[in-house]
Structure formats: C-alpha cells, structure tokens
C-alpha cells in the first residue's frame, strides 16, 4: 500500500465529511474550558473471522465498529468522551463533554488542524489486506491445518482453528495542528489440537500472524502451526509432574520474551513511574539488571504484530533502549507522561479502540543477543528447567512479582534435555530475575505474532522476543517436592 496515511485521511474525508474545518472546530470546542491539549481519534475497524471445527467451517463473523474518541489533557488529568456517531452534532457534544476537565469559562480558541503528510515508510508488510481475500482462500488454509494435524499423530481427536483479520483506519487530529492517518492490518491464525490416548486428554494451542497479508502463510504455513499444536498436545501425554522449588531455568529463544514483557516491560511504562507506583520509579541511570541484559522496545519491525507506523496519539513509532548493559535508560512515554518528565514521546501511546483512553504501552519488546550458544548454555546446567512456550503471565507492577504458565518445558539433567514436564509455573520478581541472568546466547528470535497484552482492561497486539538465556534461579511451581 503506497501511503496508508494519505489513504486513511481521504477515507474519513470522503466517507464522513471530516475535513480540516470540521476537525479545527471540534478541537476548538474541546479546548474551550482551558485544556492544555486536545486530540480527536477517528477509527473505522472491520474484524472478520472464520471458525473451523469438526473438519468444517462452523461459523463466519464480521464486526464493524466506527467512532471518535475525544481527549482533553489538563496537567496530568484527562477528560474523555466518545461517540459512535460521526455526525457533527454528536461529535460536538462529545467535545463539550471532554472539555469539562478544564475549569475555566467557555472561550473557544482557534485551532488549525490541517493534515501534514510525512510520507514515512510503512512498517506493515503487505500488498493487500487479508480482509479483501475471498473466503474460499481462507477456508483452504484452515483445511490444510486440519489435515496436517491429523496426519501428524493418530491420537489427534479434535482440531479447532480460526483465521481472523482486522483492518483499521485511524486518523488523529491534535490541537497542536498535527493531523496524521494510518491503515493498520492485522492477521491471526489460531490452532487448538486435542490428543486423546485412552482416557487421557491433552489440549495444546498455537498461533501466529502479524501486520501482514495472506503472504504470511508462505513464510509460516498452516501446516507448521497445526503440527506444532499437535506435537505439543502429544508431548503432554508423556509429561512428568514438574518439580517444586528454586532451580536454574534456561529460557528458550523467541516466546520467552513474554517473560521480559511482563516482568520488566510493564514496570517501564511511564504512567506507573509518573505516579511513583512502579518498582523502577526514580531509577533511570541505575543498574537494574545483569550487565548482560539489554532490553529494547521497537515499534518499527516490518510486519510484526506489535508494530505501528504511528501510535494512537499520532506520534511515529520508535526504537527505545530501555535497559542497556544492565543500566536503566528510560521509560515508554505517551504525550501525558512525556510532558510530565519533559522528554520526547516514544510513540508508545496506545488504546484498544476509540472508546478507550490512551496509555503508554509496549510494541515489540525484546532482549538483544549475547555471545553464548544455546547448546553450551544447556550443557552447563546440572539440574534445571528448559522453558520453551507459554500460555500467559501476570505481573504486579508495584513490586515486579510475576508468574508464568509454561506450556512446553523439559527437565535438564546433567546438561541434557530429558523428560517433558507438565504443570510448570515460574514465580519470581522481575528485577531479581534480571539480576540473575548469567548467560545470553546469540540466537535472538522474535516470537511469531500471537501475543496480546492487557492493561486496565484494554487488550492490544504486541510482539515479544528473546535469545536463549540462563537465569541462575527461579522458583518453579510444580507439584513434586
């Protein structure tokens, strides 16, 4: 797509008659009670999905949502309103509602909201969105996944899959005159495989995708995703109960980045630090991790699930070094926190939909590679855990305590991977675990696009990545004492 920004602006202008004059007038109303800053966030979103069950298409769905969210900032405080109706009367009412965070008498100020096109390169790798592919092409992908999983192992008794795509037109108009647009594609392929051996049932799930078109499936085939789910379900049939207690843990490359996202990333989102509620508050310039650890958040990786051309405040995505050689370098900022700290926004202001308020959020978060080889790292562990894939995790931002559910893990005994484990949890503290990173391998990988991050009830797509890493000790929550 040549210039998604220009196409998005034309889309809102042609379809809803939202032109510079209309935007200027709404922004002027929004600031009329003394707000410092106002912004309009227009969104038109189409989500399509096809569900596959019992070797056939179970259902198809399409959801269309449109609206504008209007925010007024006064100091650290925000007023917010939204409307699904994009006619001027409804939008004016929303602007008036949002303006009430300001406290002065009504006094409209002139605002000039004329689009400035940046013509910056797009970080989305697609020619045409999956939304415009014929349904038969998507169904064919689901069929291929089903066949591959069942052929992989005779114990695969069920295969549920879905293919989903989203196409989001957004336009941001701000009281400082900035007007930018974007078209954000997102695809997602999910597989759930059930292995049944006698009475024993094991379910495993995988998924992938990104800000790509149908060509994603040339890089990652439906077969490979389905076989991975089937393999994990079968593997669980023979898995042993996990041990309980503190053990060395080798985090495998790729998916383990979710641990970094939860255990460290959230604590570096600037809203928590502005409020002094993060364990990283006031620690910029201080050592917060092993010197082997460098952590980056990068919203510009082509085609990745967490990438964005511009954030939901209209700022371009950036690459931010958060921790460098173990030293804390900075936080992830939206406009409010950037103003508070007197720094530039990092393109981290994101919202789930126009109904939601902006928060500083991660994009693609990962640890940079080191010097070791993954084989050497595993060889060096006498008794420990090798953790490969995860179903999710949670962190307490205030103190960094976290937990992770590991869906694929193995015992390491005398330097070798031995039995697969079930029911593995990793429990620890973010800063503590990062200080215990004793080896980092060169095999950095970005996880395939399947992670969704939740914060304040808002879910947004993110990317995670990691090289193979040794943590000298994490509490493993198993059942074998």
């Amino acid at each position, binding site marked *: 797509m040549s210039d998604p920004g220009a196409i998005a602006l034309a889309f809102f202008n042609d379809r809803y008659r939202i032109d510079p004059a209309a935007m200027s007038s709404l922004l002027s109303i929004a600031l009329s009670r003394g707000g410092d800053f106002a912004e309009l966030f227009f969104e038109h979103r189409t989500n399509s999905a096809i569900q596959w069950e019992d070797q056939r298409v179970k259902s*198809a769905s399409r959801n269309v949502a449109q609206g504008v969210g209007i925010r007024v900032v006064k100091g650290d405080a925000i007023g917010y309103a*939204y409307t699904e109706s994009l006619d001027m009367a409804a939008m004016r009412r929303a602007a008036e509602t949002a303006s009430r965070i300001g406290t002065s008498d009504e006094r409209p100020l002139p605002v000039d909201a004329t689009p400035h096109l940046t013509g910056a390169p797009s970080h989305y790798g697609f020619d045409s969105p999956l939304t415009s592919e014929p349904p038969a092409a998507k169904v064919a992908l689901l069929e291929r996944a089903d066949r591959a999983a069942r052929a992989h192992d005779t114990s695969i008794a069920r295969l549920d899959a879905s293919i989903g795509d989203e196409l989001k037109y957004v336009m941001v108009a701000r009281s400082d005159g900035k007007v930018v647009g974007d078209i954000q594609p997102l695809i997602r392929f999910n597989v759930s495989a059930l292995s049944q051996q006698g009475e024993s049932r094991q379910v495993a799930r995988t998924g992938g995708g990104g800000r790509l078109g149908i060509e994603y499936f040339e890089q990652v085939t439906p077969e490979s995703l389905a076989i991975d789910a089937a393999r994990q379900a079968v593997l669980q049939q023979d898995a042993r109960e996990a041990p309980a207690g503190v053990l060395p843990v080798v985090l495998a490359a790729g998916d383990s980045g979710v641990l970094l996202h939860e255990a460290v990333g959230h604590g570096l989102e600037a809203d928590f630090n502005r409020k002094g509620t993060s364990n990283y508050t006031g620690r910029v310039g201080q050592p917060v991790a092993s010197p082997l650890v460098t952590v980056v958040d990068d919203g510009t990786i082509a085609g990745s699930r967490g990438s964005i051309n511009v954030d939901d405040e209209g700022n371009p995505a950036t690459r931010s070094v958060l921790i460098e050689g173990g030293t804390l370098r900075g936080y992830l900022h939206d406009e409010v926190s950037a103003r508070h700290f007197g720094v530039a926004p990092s393109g981290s202001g994101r919202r789930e939909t126009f109904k939601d308020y902006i928060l500083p959020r991660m994009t693609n978060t990962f640890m940079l590679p080191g010097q070791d080889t993954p084989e050497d790292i595993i060889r060096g562990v006498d008794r420990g855990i090798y953790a490969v894939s995860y179903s999710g995790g949670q962190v307490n931002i205030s103190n960094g305590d976290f937990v992770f559910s590991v869906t694929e893990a193995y015992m390491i005994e005398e330097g070798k991977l031995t039995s697969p484990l079930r029911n593995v949890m990793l429990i620890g503290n973010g800063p503590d675990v990062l200080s215990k990173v004793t080896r980092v391998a060169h095999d950095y990988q970005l996880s395939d696009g399947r992670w969704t991050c939740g914060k304040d009830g808002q879910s947004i797509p993110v990317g995670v990545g990691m090289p193979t890493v040794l943590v000298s000790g994490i509490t493993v*929550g198993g059942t074998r004492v």
Partner: protein
Amino acid sequence: MEGPSPLEIARRAVLLARAAGAEQCDAIVSMYTESNVTVRLGELEKLIEAGSMALGLRVINGGRTAVCSTSDLSPLSLERFAAETVELASISEPDECAGLPGQALLASAPNAAALALYDERLESLSTEQKIQMARACEGAAFATDPRITNSDGASLSTRIGHMALANSLGFEGSYPATTISLVVEAIADDAEGKKRNGYWYSAERSLHRLLDPEEIGRIAARRTLDQLGARKVPTCQVHVVFEPMMAVSLMGDLVGCANGSALYRGATFLGGRLGEKIGSPLVTITDDPSIPGRFGSRPFDGEGVATRPNTIMAKGVFSAFLFDCYTARRTGNLTTGSAQRGIESLPVPGPSNLTLEPGQATPEEIIAGVPSGLYLTTLMGSGFNPATGDYSRGAGGFWIESGQVAYPVTEINISSRMDAMLAGIDAIGNDLSWFGASAAPTLRIGEMTVSGT
C-alpha cells in the same frame, strides 16, 4: 438517547434479515451510557462520559451460521447489514445442531422488574457526587496509616444500560440494568525499595448496596499494610485456607469446566463424570439467575430461553453441566438456559450467579485447625488446565503457625489437581461473601504443594 429503542432496532433487524432470506435469526442490541471518575492524591485525574448502541445479528440458514455486528444503525445501513449477514452465512457448512431454541423453551412474558437490576438513582448521580465518593474512598485509605504513601487512585464507574433480544420465532425481550463500582489501590514502601500494594472494590447494581466508600479505602489500606515484610517460605506440602475472594476464584475455575462448550470439545476433566462424587460432602455449588439485585441475574438467557437455577455440585456430587442450545444438541442434552451473548459473537454457555454454600465454622476456627499452612489472599497467573484439572497458581497471603496467622508471604506458588482439591476440602466457613456475580465463604484444603525457596 433519542431515536428508536433497542427493541425496535432488534425487531427491525430480524425483519430485514428474514426479508433478505434468513430462515432463522436473532438480534441483540445493547445500549448504554457510561461514566468514570478517577481521583488520585485527592485530585481529579480522569473524567469519562460516553454512550453507545450496537447491534449483533445471528443468521442460521440450513444450519449455516454467521454472526455480524455494527454500530451504524441508520435504516439504510441496517438493510445492507442484514443482507450481508445472510450472505456471509453461506461461507459456513451445514451443522445440524445449529438453530434457535425450540419455541416451548423461550421465556414467556419475561419480567425483569422483579430482579431489581435497575437503579434510577444512578441517572441523577452528579459528576460532583461521584468525585466526592472517589475522594472519600482514597482519603480513607491514606488516613488509615501514615505508611500508606501512594495510591493508584480511586475510580468510580457507572453504567446505565438497556439490552434487547428478538428472534424470528417471535420472541421479544428487553430490560434496563445499571452497575456502579468503586475501586481503590493503596501503596506502601517496604524494605529494600520494594513496594506493597493492596486493592479493594465494591460493584453492585444499585447505589444503596455499594459498600461505603471510606470502608473500601480502609480495607484496601489494611490489605496493603498486611503485606509489609512479606517473604518466601520453603517448599512444602501443607493446608491452604482460601479467603472468600480466593474461594470465588477456585469455584470459577471449576465451573468453567462444567460447561457444554468444553464438554463437546473434550476439553474438560469433568467429561463423563456426571453423577460422580468428586468433591468433599461439604461442597454444594448452585447457579441461580433469579436472585434480586445480583450481577448475573437475568429474566431470559442470551437466546431468549427462560432461565432457571442449576445445581452444579450437590454435596460433592457433580450434578450439572451448563448448556446453551448448540452445546446441548451437540451432547444430547437440553439447554439449561445458560446462554451468554455478546454483540460480536455466538452464544456460549456460562454461569449466572454462583454460590458456594456456606458451612458452620467461623474463619477463625478454620485457621485455628491448621498446624502449619497458608492463608491465601492473592492468586496470580492462569495456571489452570481445564482439560486435565492440573492447578498451579502464583500465590500470596499469610503463613499460619500453630493455628495463628504469623507473617505475610509472597512469591510462592500453590499446586495440586482440581479433583484432589475438591475432595480435600475439609472445612467451609459461615462467612459467605459476594464478589460481583459470585459468592463463597472461607474454605480449607487439606494439602497442596507450596513452592518457595
């Protein structure tokens, strides 16, 4: 909001879909206005007010299903939307189990008024009053103890909504509902630069049932202070006492497995175990959609079926799965009136108001019977596998020594299997407490693995 009512729009969508060729269809419309005020360190930090109305349409043609949603409800758009939904159904393949409920199952003359789901006082609650409530809540947290040094703010939210459901069999139902909630998180500084936090909340359908804002603040502060000095404990196998909020979480995990959707997918450890004695005789769990004023109460389910109470576990015997029409037909059962329905998706079975029946013991007596063990007040992560019943969660709370709460603990994990946990429940308290749509008392499990140092 001006314009046609939710029921008029649902009715119109059904007619338009029928005209476009739908054999069967149903339409759900949700309209609401919402507000949120957040006060932090005594200052107004966030003020949100907005309204929304959206339509979800399900079409079933020859067993082929599609579901679509839109918020563009103008007459012209609606006609195109209905036709597109009918067309989309042709992508699906015929499924003999897809279909609307049988006529006889539909709720006749559903009466929402008796359920007390709507409080008109929320309409007149002013922004200034809401700010005062949030401020009082946060202020009480700070006033509890000088060691409370920070706050994530106190947040008061209201929602005034109206939902309507209509289907091509002639069912029409519609009712208003309100919610109000207040939450606060208090923060204290602990040794070694660690912060401790605790929150508390109240969420109700009507203002008069909401817990006093200052009381919410005091409880949040107390829960924060309780965590000061929390430490790990050595790995061991001990009694675990679940406070009521944690017992609600455990019950939720169990009931997620007693679900027709998990049953036909083979994804529940309860498959094939109906009638089996799984839990201790102390365990009785009911799902009752008819309790006035509760979150899960509803006069009809997401498919228009009359709701009814279901007993999921009776004195330890597993006695019911929850079904909607599709999962019931798939498994040779009848719907239990448990369909839940969002605007954007197909119905799925789910609970209404869950209650774990209380017992005789006081919480103090339950703790007094523990020589060494964990009093659980925090669970983290999603380490429950419904297919196998394996249970493993991050945990925090207090260590119990010789029947007394001794010191706070953190960064530990508890694990077992759901059936072993249910069978191992050896005490249930008399302190039934409600959290949203669920209520449970304190309970004690004989033995779980605690992972620590």
